[in-house]
């Protein structure tokens, strides 16, 4: 029942993307895009960490659970990690996480791993813009709504409660005390 063009409060949908960018490559690429006046969409909220290998899958899940429509993890190209091999761990974690998210019903385009070196400001900007449009097409995620009871149950409960009230007091009756000889 998702209206892809509007969010839950009927505002035109602007995707909220959380970005985890590594200090040495991808964050500098974003900086470069900034100083070179390469526009990228403001939908991404950037969080800087020292390494993409620092991204605990729980960060991604928390972002989605708290209302993000998408998450990007960005780091140095494999082989170029400032800490040598940690972005290989990023690859492995990310693949396992994607596999799990797919099984939970989170669409593939909402979570993206992007490599960008410090000189690749244009590349990163293009990747961000591309992701924003893909997520826009998918519509709002609004994950907390998925665990809210609804789908007619509230209405039915109200109906049953009203009917019970009409019928009279609840049927719990106290059992009299045991008669002692």
């Amino acid at each position: 029942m998702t209206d892809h063009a509007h969010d839950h409060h009927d505002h035109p949908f602007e995707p909220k993307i959380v970005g985890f960018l590594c200090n040495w490559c991808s964050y500098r690429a974003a900086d470069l895009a900034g100083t070179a006046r390469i526009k990228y969409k403001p939908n991404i909220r950037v969080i800087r960490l020292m390494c993409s290998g620092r991204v605990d899958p729980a960060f991604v899940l928390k972002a989605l659970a708290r209302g993000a429509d998408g998450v990007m993890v960005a780091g140095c190209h494999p082989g170029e990690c400032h800490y040598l091999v940690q972005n290989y761990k990023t690859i492995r974690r990310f693949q396992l996480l994607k596999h799990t998210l797919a099984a939970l019903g989170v669409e593939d385009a909402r979570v993206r791993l992007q490599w960008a070196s410090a000189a690749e400001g244009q590349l990163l900007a293009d990747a961000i813009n591309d992701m924003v449009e893909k997520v826009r097409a998918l519509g709002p995620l609004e994950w907390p709504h998925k665990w809210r009871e609804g789908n007619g149950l509230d209405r039915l409960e109200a109906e049953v409660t009203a009917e019970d009230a009409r019928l009279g007091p609840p049927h719990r009756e106290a059992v009299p005390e045991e008669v002692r000889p």
Partner: protein
Amino acid sequence: MNRITIDPVTRLEGHGKIEIFLDPEGEVQNAYFQVPELRGFERFCVGRLAEEMPNLTDRICGVCPEAHHMAATKALDALFHVDPPPAARKLRELFYSIFFATDHTTHFYALSGPDFVMGPDAPKAERNILGVIKKVGMDVAGRVLKMRKDGHDLIAMIGGRRVQPNWGLPGGVSRGITEDERQQILERGKEAVEFARFSLKLFDDVVLGNPAYVEMIQSDGYTHRTYDMGTVDEKNRVNFYDGMIRVKDPEGREAFKYHPKDYLQYVEERVEPWTYLKFPYLKKVGWKGLVDGKDSGVYKATPLSRLNAAEGMATPLAQEEYERMYATLGGKPVHHTLATHWARLVELLYAAERWVELASDPEVASPTVRVLPKAKPDEGIGCVEAPRGTLTHHYWTDERGVVTRVNLVVGTTNNYAPIAMSVKKAAQSLIHKGTVVTEGLLDRVEMAFRAYDPCFGCATHSLPGQMPLEVTVRDARGEVVEHLERA
């Protein structure tokens, strides 16, 4: 008052409530045993790995996890088309016998025993295992606690944990036992046989020695004449681990005998809107309602049913007790619900003797307890006797062994119709015009279901989904304009 509610029912596993309706004359018009719980195993196990099923389904019940674990493990054997090595089969049955003895002990002493040892009229606060311990004294209580402790410790030794073992695999089990362990198990087994004999003696003294209880046992209010179901070996003797399923009619004649993999031809289930639990019945006889008799498909699968459905017990001391029970109660079949407690103790003795038999066989300590499957999995059925009735697990998987469909017919579920009938009949015989409905009287109604040792966690593994919705649109004059239903 015209309605009495017992909520929740107590001293059983699971949830239930009893609603008793009285007519204007004060007689019981009807009584309903509702089961208000479910979780959805038959659906949420779909998508899971086949080898997880022993560990997922044993969370259907924490009182009898070993039963589900074993039925699931046998289903995996069938699913993967693999036979466990002989040592594994013996070890599994040994483990199962230990579990059976421990579980029956728990039920008799902690769950139903208080009704006999303390009596249904004892104050509510004393009608429980703690009251029993105080009344019988630490000597006796100590034996009970030791039996349960030893049983659970052996289950943990063999299967990993006291509750929720992690042991069964297609083609065998994850670990065998050492020779040292076998000796320990054998020693405990001999003690278990003594304990079982002691329990039967206690039953004689406390229950059969009390005329009020004997009258209660034989009273019509606690009697139902239905079909009986149980698993039997090749000599038609009771077996808990494996065999053919045998059903006898209310007069004691064999009606059906089938291999567990054919269960769908014999058992069918019915849905009622006032309870989450389904009512199984014999398909070839048909559903005629919650009634007794040869024409009604209602059947029982309890310790008493197992003894009724078989021709004897496979071990000598249990066979003696089996003969004594039937001689005392007037021959086979016995349909007195409360005699189930006696049958349960006969089974306790058999389980202990079987435990000793299997533990005496050195092969049970062999290191070869598993073979790896070679065939691709597709479909498998595994069946055991749970303490509470015949337990059937049925799985379908894809080629990778990912579960695609599950069907379960669980021990207590078999007995839902008789339980409902027993509760109603007990209420009808105990509550009349002018009866003062005391708390002790309501406990006597509950005693009607406790004899079945029900496990409603087991029974209600399944979950309903959609809430139905009915909308009636009326105009200002109250005329129906439109009626919409979502089923």
